[in-house]
């Protein structure tokens, strides 16, 4: 409200608006590509640098921050603020309809596609830089939305070495997928489905462990899968009403003893 009206008001000039959007999307794609590392590995090595520059015997690997700082010149700040529009709408506080059973089933099926079992770290559905300190946080630290694609916000506090736990789904180029992999008969623990309710209308208890996961909005927030979204994003303190399971979170007693694992008599 406090911002002065723009001279070329978008309402009045649809063409300009389309151009702006086009630029926005291009910039966004470039930025996303840069951070996630989706630029393909060069098919051919880059042209040789000027001869006579022997490889230094010891080199120091630059950090992401240094790379950003090292960017100078006219374009140094070209990406500044570029990510902001992509975060728009991520923090909606408007109530939304309760998910239908079908949406929920779909959400559970979609989750299953990226996990060996309920509780496994999800696999990465896009390419990543195979070597560098991963740039995962550029998109996933706060979450991002680009068209229908959503980079969910981390559900756990950021760990710098993301690819310690998250394996990429598709074989990295140029490696060929394994042709005749033997089948694996592991059947992972299925999604627990809905949390149990003490009575109809009571807040459901959490049907999954919350170990390491503190950011419920990652899955249940407005950018979460439609079947998993909370109907009341305006409420921020989830654990006030939704109880976690001591059993699923390994808060039970004497887990190592055989007598304690046979189920209560």
């Amino acid at each position, binding site marked *: 409200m406090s911002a002065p009206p723009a001279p070329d008001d978008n309402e009045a000039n649809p063409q300009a608006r389309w151009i702006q959007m086009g630029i926005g999307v291009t910039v966004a794609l470039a930025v996303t590509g840069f951070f996630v590392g989706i630029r393909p590995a060069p098919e051919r090595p880059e042209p040789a640098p000027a001869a006579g520059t022997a490889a230094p015997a010891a080199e120091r690997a630059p950090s992401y921050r240094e790379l950003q700082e090292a960017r100078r010149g006219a374009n140094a700040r070209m990406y500044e603020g570029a990510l902001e529009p992509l975060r728009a709408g991520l923090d909606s506080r408007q109530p939304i309809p309760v998910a239908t059973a079908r949406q929920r089933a779909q959400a559970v099926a979609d989750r299953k596609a990226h996990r060996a079992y309920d509780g496994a770290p999800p696999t990465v559905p896009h390419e990543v830089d195979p070597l560098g300190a991963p740039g995962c946080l550029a998109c996933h630290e706060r979450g991002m939305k680009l068209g229908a694609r959503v980079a969910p916000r981390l559900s756990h506090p950021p760990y*710098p*070495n993301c690819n310690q736990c998250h394996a990429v789904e598709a074989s990295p180029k140029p490696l060929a997928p394994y042709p005749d992999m033997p089948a694996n008969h592991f059947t992972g623990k299925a999604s627990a489905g809905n949390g149990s309710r003490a009575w109809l209308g009571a807040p459901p208890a959490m049907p999954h462990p919350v170990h390491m996961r503190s950011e419920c909005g990652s899955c249940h927030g407005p950018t979460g899968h439609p079947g998993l979204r909370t109907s009341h994003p305006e409420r921020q303190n989830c654990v006030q009403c939704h109880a976690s399971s001591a059993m699923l979170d390994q808060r039970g007693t004497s887990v190592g003893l055989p007598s304690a694992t046979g189920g209560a008599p």
Partner: protein
Amino acid sequence: MERRDFLKSTALAAATLAASRLAYGQERAAVAPSGAERKGSGLSWQKAPCRFCGTGCHVQVGVEGGKVVAIAGDQQAEVNKGLLCMKGYHVGLALYGGDRLTQPLLRKGDKQVPISWEEAINIIARRILQDPKGFGLYGSGQWTIPEGYAATKLVKGGLGSHQIDANARLCMSSAVTGFLATYGVDEPAGCYDDLDTCDVLIMWGNNPAEMHPVLFSRVIDRRSRGEKVTLIDIGTRKTRTSTFCDHVLRFKPNTDLAIACGIAHLLVENGTWNREFVEAHCAFRAPSEPATLQGKAISFEEYRKLLAPYTPAHVEQLSGVSQKDLRMLAELFGRKELRITSLWCMGVNQHTRGTAMNSLLHGLHLLSGHFGRPGDAPTSLTGQPSACGTVREVGTLAQALPGGRSVTSAEHRQQMEELWNLPAGRISDKIGYHAVQMWERFSTPKEKGGDIHTLWVQVTNPAQTLPNRHKLVDPSRTLPDKFLIVSDAYPTATTRIADLVLPSAMWVEKNGMVGNSERRTQQWFKMVNPPGQARDDAWQLIAVAHRLFELGFEGMKDREGRFLFEVKKDGRPVPIWDFARYYDVNVDAHLFEEYRKSTRLKHKDLAPYEEYVKARGLRWPVVQQPDGSWRETRFRFAEFDDPYVAKGRGIQFYHSTSHDDRAQIWFAPYEPPPESPDGEFPFWLCTGRVIEHWHSGTMTMRIPQLQHAMPQAYVELNRADARRLGVGNGDQVTVETRRGSLDLPVWVGGRGEPPEGSLFVPFFDERLLINMLTLDEYDPFSKQPDYKKCAARVRRREAREAKG
């Protein structure tokens, strides 16, 4: 009666449905009870150490309906504090590869045909009886402690030979000799707690971001919390670890010795070494003529003179590391207030100068006094989950006896004969063959001195992991009187060439105990049944021992003529050799309690089995307190924590080789490697692992998530080399050494980045066996081969050739 049961169960279903409707309302009535509600009866959680590496993370294993269905990081585990890596999170899938071995197979012609266990055990017993001393057992750092102990007792106490060795020879033995040469006793003084308090972490030829990721995260997560830790990578190639480091020092292969000597030289010349610490607790050593593990004692002045050539300028020229960086390292070591932890693993161990390099690293920490305070530690990491617990502590090696004892000591042999209740003189005084020799003898005709006729391999895949397979493995397959027995869970490069294949139970399909890199002994219980006729490795050993006993073989009897592995329950022997009765008692607990008695000699005291059931592992020495409780030791040789250090001593090296409580600071010179690049073979070839795969990929290549993420071996090239060769990503090239050749796809700008003139190939892929090319030269003391460097050349394959 059946009809009645059916009626009752129908009635119960109706009642349950109604109850669930009451409990959850109309909406859920038709839905079957879900996982969260089934927890009481269905899913149960139990602790187990992860099956894969030497870090020793604990996982919680979720079991339902007799199957492992979920894995979670164990929050009560000190090692990993609830976190795992991608291998650990998928470890449960390792049990369920579709091609598990489920019955014994015997080679007939070019086929392997199913036979009964009875027949298989008979065949092995007959092969042993034919010539007991020519029977070899080749085991593993993935043997559990009770398995390794049973194997040791079978060979050393039963067959009267020492023809037992383990794959840990290929990964850890130089660490052992380094510890022995320095402290007189094996295994690290510090522990993982050092990682929480160090100011500087130096990684020597080490890539923990991929190989020990949970430990690496333990350090870099401190940065996220705002702490300052300086990370230094001293290596031969850029890795994921390098990208997190403050300093990346790249050296020419084999010159790590020159770097260590260069730092020591600067400390001495600048007067920044810790005189007080050294004068109180250390002495100096140098290689002797002839070379021995003890070397010869030298004075400080002699030490200083030996270091004199290693000036920064000279070391820079040898290693390629700049004088500035060398001075930076020396400056850090010279600052007494800093806490410095060194980590190393295969880069230092798989080295023809591995013993020397291990000793030099300990020496740097001793010389500078960066020892014995939390955060100040030279820490050697292990690769396998029980390389320490089984191979090093039990001593499943050709020269070792349990509890840190040595075959060559009459006293030690006599102690073991006492423990095992054997007639005097049963244990041989002749050291057996180490791994490379054992396979060499197995691949040599009998008339030419190849006196190993039968080799039993358990829990390892030597056809993929031994160096120079053409020489060490393949010849045996064409010799008529050589018989190869392999126990494994899956078909491997080794089972495929075996004469007899035995299906093994794995991980939580059996009871087990292992020991990790920080002296932590861990325990788990059997949780699910193995598939088909797969059976425990320890059972296999005991069944063969009992068959020999039944056939009247004297070696399987003790002084009173009782079976060597007799286990009693309520005063009566249990027939544990009958697999149906094997779990009538906890055989693991019996073997462990017997083994435990041997661990006091070298102050590696272990607690009773029950203590490990309660704990997420305990670090030895575990010493009983006046109140009866058991206390673990985090920092050895330091008075504030180690109960075996005398009061008032501060630091005491109580197993000193010089018997004066001093540790040895070694000088060892740089020497060129046995094979270096030349005009014909101009590249260095290095081999190693990747985060997705464990060792030879037998388990992880059957886990879809890991296998998709890293489906095949490749050769890493520097961009400049790729340009020169005219090859790009995905092009097929032929990598050749003097021992063999292999076609591989090129990956430039991939997982790692070797400097110009260097190649890297991972060894997990059984279709692309890089160990056909590696060098079988080994360290003179540890007998550990060097997989990290040999000379190679790369040739571009023409498109036509590549297709054919």
